[in-house]
């Protein structure tokens, strides 16, 4: 299966990935609604670059008690009509990239908007060992 | 005769990512402009060219042993 991979040494911290994701999946420019988290800040130890992306570990699929998150042909989808807003998936997601919304959640659907926008190939869509 | 060509910044891509190239340059009376054509570097991508460190026009003739530096355009400041 193919999934997102993050290469921190190439990341410039421009957040275009966050904007591309939220525009594609939420219909607005809102970095906090992106289904990935890229951080690039200067803290006391110097520049800190960190990336959290969905690697298709499927923990959410296994954990959802209502089968509202499913995987098909290497892509996740969310079925809002089955969701009870229990929040288990948000808490369990290892990279912490499932977005809690006012109703339901946002999961990475492998749309590749973020990697298509990434100007430095810090985000790629590549084969993962599953 | 041998000349050295230096491609600065993004212009390296016209020599497969190499900044400094030394090569034999047989033709006589070749100009800077012809050298740019040989590497398919559009003049619209060039701000100015230095020959042996000095700013020169595109019709400047190149001699053996010259170092030609090609600078990209810059904006802002």
């Amino acid at each position: 299966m193919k999934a997102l991979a993050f290469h921190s040494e190439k990341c410039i911290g421009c957040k275009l990935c966050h904007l591309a994701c939220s525009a594609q999946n939420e219909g607005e420019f809102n970095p906090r609604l992106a289904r990935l988290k890229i951080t690039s800040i200067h803290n006391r130890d110097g520049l800190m670059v960190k990336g959290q992306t969905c690697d298709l570990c499927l923990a959410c699929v296994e954990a959802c008690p209502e089968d509202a998150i499913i995987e098909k042909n290497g892509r996740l989808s969310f079925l809002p009509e089955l969701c009870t807003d229990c929040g288990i998936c948000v808490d369990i997601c290892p990279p912490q990239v499932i977005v809690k919304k006012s109703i339901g959640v946002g999961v990475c659907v492998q749309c590749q908007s973020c990697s298509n926008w990434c100007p430095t190939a810090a985000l790629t869509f590549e084969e993962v060992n599953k | 005769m041998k000349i050295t060509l230096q491609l600065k910044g993004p212009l390296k891509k016209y020599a497969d990512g190499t900044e400094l190239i030394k090569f034999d340059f047989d033709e006589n009376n070749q100009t800077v402009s012809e050298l740019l054509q040989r590497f398919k570097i559009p003049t619209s991508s060039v701000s100015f060219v230095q020959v042996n460190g000095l700013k020169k026009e595109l019709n400047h003739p190149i001699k053996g042993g010259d170092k030609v530096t090609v600078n990209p355009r810059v904006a802002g400041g």
Partner: protein
Amino acid sequence: MAYMDKVLRINLTTGKSTTEPLNKEWAREYLGGKGLSIKYLYEELKPGVDPLSANNKLILMTGPITGTLVPNSGKLAIAAKSPATGTILDCSIGGHFASELKFAGYDAVIIEGKADKPVYLYIEDDKVELRSAATLWGKGAHETEHLLYEELGDVITLAIGQAGENLLTMACISSELYRQAGRGGIGAVMGSKNLKAISVRGTGGIKIPDIRKFSAAMNKIKREDTMTDDNMWAYSDGTPMIVDLSQSTGILPTRNFQEGTFDEYRAINSDAVKSVLKAKKACFACPLACSNYVKMGKTEVEGPEYETLALCGSNCGIGDMEAVIEFNRLCDDHCLDTISAGNTVAFAMEMTEKGIHDFGIRFGEVEKYLTMPTLIATRQGVGADLALGVKKMAEKFGGRDFAMEIKGLEIPGYEPRGSWAMGLAYGTSDRGACHMRAWPAAVEAFGDIDPFTSEGKAELVIGMQDDNSVKFSAIWCDFWAISTERMAEILTLLLGREFTAAELKTTGERIYNLAHLFNEREGFDRKDDYLPARIYNEKLTTGFTAGRSLPKEEYEKMLSEYYKLRGWDENGKITAEKKKALNL
């Protein structure tokens, strides 16, 4: 929509904050950023207001493209009346503050009055609070940002250091440690209001029609027009690339503009920066990542930019990269503008060497040089004199002919004797000597326009000033060489009404004229648009510019032609017809 239609107004005297709709009519004529902040200041400031009084206002202004996927849209305009020059002052700062402010729901913040004790402003969406800055006052901008981040979480902060607190006319505002609203003493305006910092967290979004179609169009533009040969110098090198260009064309300011070339330039050029590069870094929504995060010895910085390498390097006779990096870091932390600070130290060095006044520092003295930022920002020892800046130092101690400033603002890193239009750009800039209003060095010294003639330079500078006025209002970063046609195309897609390149050129002209009108109202005219005597009277002696000056009669010729083409009178005042034509 692309505008949030909301302005946050804060009165620090009363502690009250209110919101109001953005003035739509003004936004139509002035876009945002530079233009719109100047419009608000022109309408709201009384003529003659003391820039360091409670009556000055500080405006943070975004633009319609801020917070979207439009490439290079990460900049914020910060404007006030300048304490350094008495002119209008708009600065632009990169990083992630502008977008965060918009996600909090605001196009702009207008800050009025003066707090009775040090405060910082905290904005989280609708929540707006003034909080005590008692524990932050006296600290550098870096420690201030770290403390606020630790207390507030993932906020973006604008902060001042000691220079702003001490009301230096070279005090800047820092954000994300190494980004600055640099010039004209904008940090002193914050300091005069007892405002130490502004932290913002915005959790909202920006909605526009056909957002997916818009995004696809922007991605295509990013690939085909932003990440191209014309702009990728920013990623491959960033501004340090200009050191070699300036050296080879004889316009690298050296030893207080005594020369245009520096023998040790290789110690401070792009290759030297790249040898200590750790990472490339970008502002919000920028694919070009001009910034170089470097580490060397015990010091680190995001930079040094060309201006710092030139003014704090060659211009101080310092051919030592580690020293320049450390000087840069100290300036950023204390919030000193490196252009003005470098010039000031260089002026003190020349004054000392010439025996006019002993400031105890000479060209190339690295150890003493490294003590300067702290001494200047805290007004200690010799720093108390250097804190005056070049103009006031010359008034007090002499050296007027080589005081490298215009209207009280120190000159950036392009020697006008090797780029005559650059001289005109400095003289006619709306905030004193500035290279960002127009940067003709790119096509003169670094291009194929003859740098040593006055012919055609007025038209060249006017075109650049008007285009840049649009750019800094929308608000795009300077480093994308975007055409006016492309700006019109993007604004049309974003705002859903037809923009044309011709209309934008008029908008740019209107903005530049409004800035000029502000200055006219403050008493500025032709007499203020001249260069330091050194530029007219002293010939450079080395490199490409050896034997060159910019004779005063040639400068007069350019200036007169400039006024005429602008539709201003011989004294530099906007004519009634021009005001009418631009709806001023």
